[in-house]
């Protein structure tokens, strides 16, 4: 178990390194392939009034004149060992993990990411709890009452749920429940209160995004749970359990659901992991200042260190989620043993 985890951790770090290299290549190499020069890259970070001389200084400061490999090395070194940074009147130490400084505002990226993480976490976890509970419950009931009116209705809604783009449902729900057409009972977009400031306000502000996001996922989970349950309820051990005279409730929840849960756990872990790296569309629809919104803003302004930071954080959560999911397997499914 311990060696397994260590091995996975090493692979995880390795994977992050690869992700960072590819990201770096895409953002620093592709523009050059498209014909950009060091100066023209720097031009967009010096404002409109800069003289040719200012551009030259900026090119030097941003290190665009160095070979790409050196630029990447500097980036990687910053994450591992920290970096020094010239902010004008002096030099400042940016301690590890230093994700570099915004090309535009010259402020360090890492504090920004830490700052935005609570928003994304609140959104992801809240929505995850809602969709997990509603999705699995709907799936179980649908499977047990297969062919019933409930089953059909639930599956139809579920299919509609996975077929609607979130930037559409998001706006419709905002217009309907926040902008007062017909009801103005929910917080408008862009509201976020930290949990520790005021938990009630925190939840109130997030209800709409939670439900919108959860609707999309709950639909998929209901479908998945339903088919998983249908499959496991036909397994021999369920029949054995029934034959033993166990209560139906015990059969369904202790034996049936547990078997159906394995794929759910996998997907749940990955979904939450991916969301932690920013629910880009949800955050931009509800203008929540999370990681995903940060990513969009960074891309629009071509602020490469920010893009690098966001990508790495996202990749980190996916890798971590994978690891956790694999370990959870051993808990949920007794047949799985980690070696």
């Amino acid at each position: 178990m311990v060696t397994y985890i260590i091995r996975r951790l090493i692979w995880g770090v390795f994977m992050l390194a690869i992700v960072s290299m590819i990201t770096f290549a895409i953002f620093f190499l592709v523009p050059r392939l498209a014909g950009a020069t060091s100066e023209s890259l720097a031009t967009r970070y010096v404002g409109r009034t800069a003289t040719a001389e200012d551009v030259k200084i900026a090119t030097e400061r941003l290190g665009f004149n160095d070979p790409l490999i050196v630029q990447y090395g500097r980036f990687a070194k910053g994450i591992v060992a920290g970096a020094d940074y010239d902010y004008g009147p002096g030099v400042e130490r940016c301690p590890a993990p230093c994700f570099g400084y915004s090309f535009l505002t010259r402020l360090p990226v890492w504090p920004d990411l830490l700052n935005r993480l609570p928003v994304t976490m609140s959104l992801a976890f809240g929505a995850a709890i809602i969709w997990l509970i509603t999705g699995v419950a709907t799936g179980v009931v649908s499977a047990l009452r297969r062919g019933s009116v409930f089953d059909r209705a639930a599956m139809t809604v579920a299919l509609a749920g996975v077929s609607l783009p979130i930037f559409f449902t998001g706006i419709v729900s905002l217009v309907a429940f926040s902008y007062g057409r017909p009801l103005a009972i929910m917080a408008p977009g862009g509201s976020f209160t930290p949990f520790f400031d005021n938990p009630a306000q925190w939840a109130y502000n997030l209800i709409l995004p939670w439900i919108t996001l959860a609707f999309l996922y709950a639909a998929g989970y209901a479908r998945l749970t339903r088919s998983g349950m249908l499959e496991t309820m036909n397994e021999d051990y369920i029949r054995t359990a029934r034959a033993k005279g166990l209560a139906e409730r015990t059969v369904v929840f202790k034996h049936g659901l547990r078997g159906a849960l394995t794929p759910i756990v996998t997907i749940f872990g990955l979904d939450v992991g991916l969301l932690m790296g920013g629910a880009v569309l949800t955050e931009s629809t509800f203008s929540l200042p999370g990681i995903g919104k940060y990513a969009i803003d960074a891309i629009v302004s071509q602020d490469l260190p920010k893009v690098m930071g966001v990508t790495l954080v996202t990749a980190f959560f996916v890798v971590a989620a994978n690891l956790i999911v694999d370990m959870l397997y051993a808990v949920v499914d007794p047949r799985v043993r980690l070696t």
Partner: protein
Amino acid sequence: MKRKTTLGVTALSAVLALGLAACGGGTATSPSSSGSAPASSGGGDAPKAEFNAALDKVFNPSDKKGGILKFANAGDWDSLDPADTYYGYSWNFVRLYGRSLVMFKPAPGKEGNQLIPDLAESLGVPSDGAKTWTYKLKQGVKFEDGTPITSKDVKYGVLRSLDKEVFPDGYTYFNETLDLPKDYKGPYKSKGVNTDSAIETPDDQTIVFHLKQPYSGFDYFAQLPATIPVPEAKDTGAKYREHVISSGPYKFDKNEIGKGFNLVRNDNWDPATDPNRKALPEGYEVSTNVNADDIDNRILAGDLHVDIAGTGAQPATLGRVLTDPNLKAGTDNPTLTRLWYTSINGNVKPLDNIDCRKAVEYAADKVAYQTAYGGEFSGGQIATSLMPPLIPGHKDINLYPAGPDNHGDVAKAKEHLTACGQPNGFSTNISYRAERPKEKATAEALQQSLAKVGIKLTLKPFPQADYFALYAGKPGYAKSNGIGLAVNGWGADWPDGYGFLSQMADSRVIRETGGSSNVSVRDPEVDKMFDQAAQETDIAKREAIWGQIDQKVMEDAFILPGLWAKSLLLRGKGVTNVYINDAFSMYDYLNMGVQ
């Protein structure tokens, strides 16, 4: 002084309002053009909400202290650092935490265009034929940490703003006009260089500016945020924006760039030194990067006081507000000193031929242009030349009448196409800023209207951040990629002809490296007229030259004027002292309070 008169007027109008209220309803006034004064009612204890009630008088005046004013911004500041900011709303807002030498009078309407001393005891004293300008600082002015503000802090603030590499967002007025040592790059890069040739501080209260050439309008420079004092010991360069050391009535408390910040009272601000600031609320809460529609809705719901960008309501809000008389009464519709226009690039064939350019001028559907920007209320008034009517020197020029309904004159356009040797039209590209839906709509509208005479446009969106630096504003790129038309806009830095025209019509601001707003106007005669104006000390004569420049540029057909911008502002609920200041063409943020 000003406040007293206002109170007198409002007391009278309150009585009138009571009488009117008894008659009931009927508040919706016709959309009179902004210069006129409807002045029927408003103010007093029970302010009567009315369309344009805050346009040229104070709406809901009050001296009540307390409360928190909530602002929101759909985008974000370029920077909160006074050395590094170039947005109108930022210049408006910066006065809450910084005091420059001179300021625009915080008063409604035209009165707001007047310059008055702020940190200085009086306006600048010119000598040496307006080449040297001297200001004396007020006594007893302190930073937020209690240290007295000296002329050296003002000088340091100006000097650091010269470093365009560290502070890329600012203006270059000081770089261009001060008599600086050769190759001076600001206090970070040129450490220890003696700069007395440009700015002298003979004592702690006196600051003397030396210019390369005489400039009679230097007080306009002295109101720029760059003259806000910065203590050298606390300067953190690019990071200073995180905590600007306040010299005004409020200081930064929490500042999370990209999300928002809040201001609290600065106890070291002494009202005795500052007759212009009321400092009513306990503090300010500002959130940035908020969805623009949410801002409108929250203002209408009373959850938010001010949309700080001051550019007006979103199109979705427009339909809601303008069709409901009650909501319409809570809006103001100021005219801006801004022109929305399209540059016609004479470097791109066949637009190098003046007749082809004139064909574009005639063929453009001006009503569609207006609609693209939001119609007659939130878009603006159809423009026929460059200078907005609010700027002194404005002349009524209409060289290319766009037909009886302003939908374009196809016959005239075809005539000029034939004269240009392109009787069947031609193809070119039109660029616009991808993030601006109004510019996209403009490009689409021009594509439609020019197609009627056979001019085919291909739309080319570019990212806003790079629009001038790398694409439309870079002469080499525009020429080799055939960007014949570029959707553009320019607002005056301050309401005078120089502040408006110099950056959009003087060909010497065009740089091969890109970045200038002037994309298309290249006429040596126009440049000569600018020089003539700079040397002209007689105000009336100088203003006449602005009109001549306007005329000449229009004759050259280098600019297709679209609109003189207007905006439909939502007046926040429960806000006191609301009025439009013409210097900013938006609500004055200095003296607002909470009811």
